[in-house]
């Protein structure tokens, strides 16, 4: 039977959920959406599970590290946990207080930041804004190159060349700025092998990481705003302070934090340079003062009895936890890697 449809009839708009009813009681077939998605291919599902499994290996690795370090330090956790984080005495086999080491690591990292932040910000601004374009590429290469120099080479340079150079300065600082505790020496008239030198050398070492992060973030500043600032008659410095630095603030802080984590965990340079007692003292310009966790582990781990070994491992676990946390916060601040196009 041919369907009689009045060509002039106003087409009935289908209300959602209501059937379309034509003349003579004809009911239009319910519109069922065609399934376009054929579902995931088997090969794709295998692929997805495969890459997921590979990703899981990283989690397993992290869990293994924590678990093994934990179990290896069980003796210290059982016997000396109370004093471990509070005692200022690192005197095995009697006292196992981590503070002289932890504070030393923190002091090195802080000094390193004092060196690295201004230099890195200057580097980033120079590369992004000030340097001519030819020099810009060279500078990027230079910073990358700095990152690849092995830490033991930095350390040996710090021990031989830089310490010698810094010796006179240490004496001068103690003499003229000794009223500030950090410019004193733990033992009278002994200079060199100090937390101070470690801090400076490690500061040089973390310049590349801080620079690369803050440079990337600064480069994301919208160009139009920078140009607007210049167009309003602002000087270049005004553009930097009023546009670029506020925009990149989080990134710079995040980069500095990443550098902080690196500096805390830096082993070889500190191990080569530092000689420590270790004891808690605010004086940083000479040997026999604060220690550093990685240095203590690297220097004594193989030669000490098992109980001290377990304490050193707990120190290592502490260091690991602290650096992981610092890195985690830092990455959050810098933000997710940009432009995920795929």
């Amino acid at each position: 039977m041919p369907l009689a449809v009045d060509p002039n009839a106003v087409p009935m708009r289908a209300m959602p959920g209501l059937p379309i009813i034509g003349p003579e009681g004809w009911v239009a077939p319910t519109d069922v959406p065609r399934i376009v998605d054929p579902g995931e291919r088997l090969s794709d599902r295998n692929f997805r599970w495969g890459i997921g499994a590979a990703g899981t290996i990283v989690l397993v690795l992290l869990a293994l590290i924590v678990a093994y370090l934990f179990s290896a330090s069980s003796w210290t956790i059982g016997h000396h946990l109370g004093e471990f984080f509070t005692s200022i005495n690192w005197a095995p086999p009697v006292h196992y207080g981590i503070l002289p080491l932890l504070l030393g690591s923190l002091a090195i990292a802080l000094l390193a930041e004092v060196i690295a932040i201004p230099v890195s910000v200057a580097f980033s601004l120079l590369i992004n804004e000030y340097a001519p374009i030819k020099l810009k590429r060279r500078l990027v290469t230079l910073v990358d190159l700095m990152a690849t120099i092995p830490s033991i080479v930095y350390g040996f340079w710090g021990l031989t060349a830089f310490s010698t150079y810094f010796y006179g300065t240490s004496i001068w600082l103690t003499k003229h700025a000794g009223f500030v505790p950090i410019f004193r020496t733990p033992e009278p008239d002994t200079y060199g092998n100090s937390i101070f030198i470690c801090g400076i050398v490690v500061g040089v070492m973390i310049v590349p990481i801080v620079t690369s992060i803050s440079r990337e973030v600064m480069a994301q500043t919208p160009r139009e705003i920078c140009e607007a600032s210049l167009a309003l008659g602002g000087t270049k410095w005004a553009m930097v302070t009023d546009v670029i630095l506020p925009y990149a603030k989080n990134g710079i802080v995040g980069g500095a934090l990443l550098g902080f984590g690196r500096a805390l965990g830096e082993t070889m340079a500190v191990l080569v340079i530092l000689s420590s007692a270790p004891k808690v003292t605010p004086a940083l310009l000479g040997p026999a003062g604060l220690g550093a966790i990685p240095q203590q582990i690297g220097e004594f781990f193989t030669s000490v009895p098992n109980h001290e070994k377990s304490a050193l491992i707990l120190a290592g676990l502490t260091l690991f936890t602290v650096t992981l946390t610092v890195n985690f916060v830092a990455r959050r601040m810098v933000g997710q890697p940009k432009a995920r196009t795929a």
Partner: protein
Amino acid sequence: MLPVAERHDSSGPLPSDVGVKSPMKVLNGRWKSVAELGGSALASISTTAILFAVTGWDSTFAIFVLSLMLFLMIYSVVCFVEHGALEAKSKIATVAIWLLALAGATPLVAIIFYVIANGLPVVAGHFPHFLTNSMVQAADGTAPISKAGVGAAILGTFEQVGLTALLAIPLSVVCAIFFVESKSRYANIIRMVVDAMTGTPSIVAGLFIYEIWVLPRGTSGKMGLAGSLALFVIMLPIVTRTTEEMISIVPGSIKEAALALGAPKWKVMLLVILPTAKAGIVTAAILGIARSVGETAPVLFTAGGSNFYNLNPFHGVQDDLPLRMYQAIFSHGSNADAEAWGTGFVLMSLVLALFVIARFVGAGKQGSPRKIRMLIARTRKSKETANVAPAS
């Protein structure tokens, strides 16, 4: 009328060019800036020189600091007088930035020169033996340096880092693919873990492998492979992160084109995206290798270090370059320092060679989109000039 190409530059000003030609600078002229800078420098240095000659102080550091401070003061006064407060601030900031960056670059250049100056004579003076000898006859740095050599260490480094690369790079690439492909919460968590683990203290990696691998095997636990495993812990997150970045900058259109043609995801990844990102991934891998070549702390308790040649990374202690340098630094013989510098020179050369190779490989990656962009810009320009040419 201006030539069209100049009036309508499609590429726009380069970011670093903006502001260089600020009208003030153009008006004042370059020579005036040079004169201001040079005059201030001269004034500060001569004032310092006179001061030190009169008082008889002698400290390089003090001279340096004092002349620097004087320079900044004189320069700011000059700028304030000549340009007013605003422009003066900007000029002083420019000088300060250059000086700070210079101060940051100095140690790097100093280190490279220092290593070359101290290490090259050792290596060149004992050319074939230093690179081939083992340390059997010169273990404590007291024997003449002609008996010493880093041959065993070079071999160990190659084997250990090679094994590490073999283990870490494929896994890193797969992990990176996972991060790019998967949008799930799980992938995000793992990405954060990897991010955080890029900063794992290298000594912790050494401790971990010592506990899990070396300790259960007792006296025969230290071996090249243990060193590789410790390096693996360091290398995996680093290479994963950089590889992920390299994969994620592949243009989405390429991927979408392949998917639209009906290719399954895994084929798109393996046959389209990975080949496109190949140069970047290779660069990431080489930089990761360069990084682990120089790592000392992970191999400290794991590879053991040895004075002998040990071809087998799966049995017995093995030497490598950073460990050799470490042992030389802590030896007390009269030749120990020379050995350390020689080893350091070999190590640095190896790392720098890897760095240069990575640059070369990476140059292709950076070059191609740039070339395409330039090509597009050029054709657009030539079209415009062709269109306009008859009219003018």
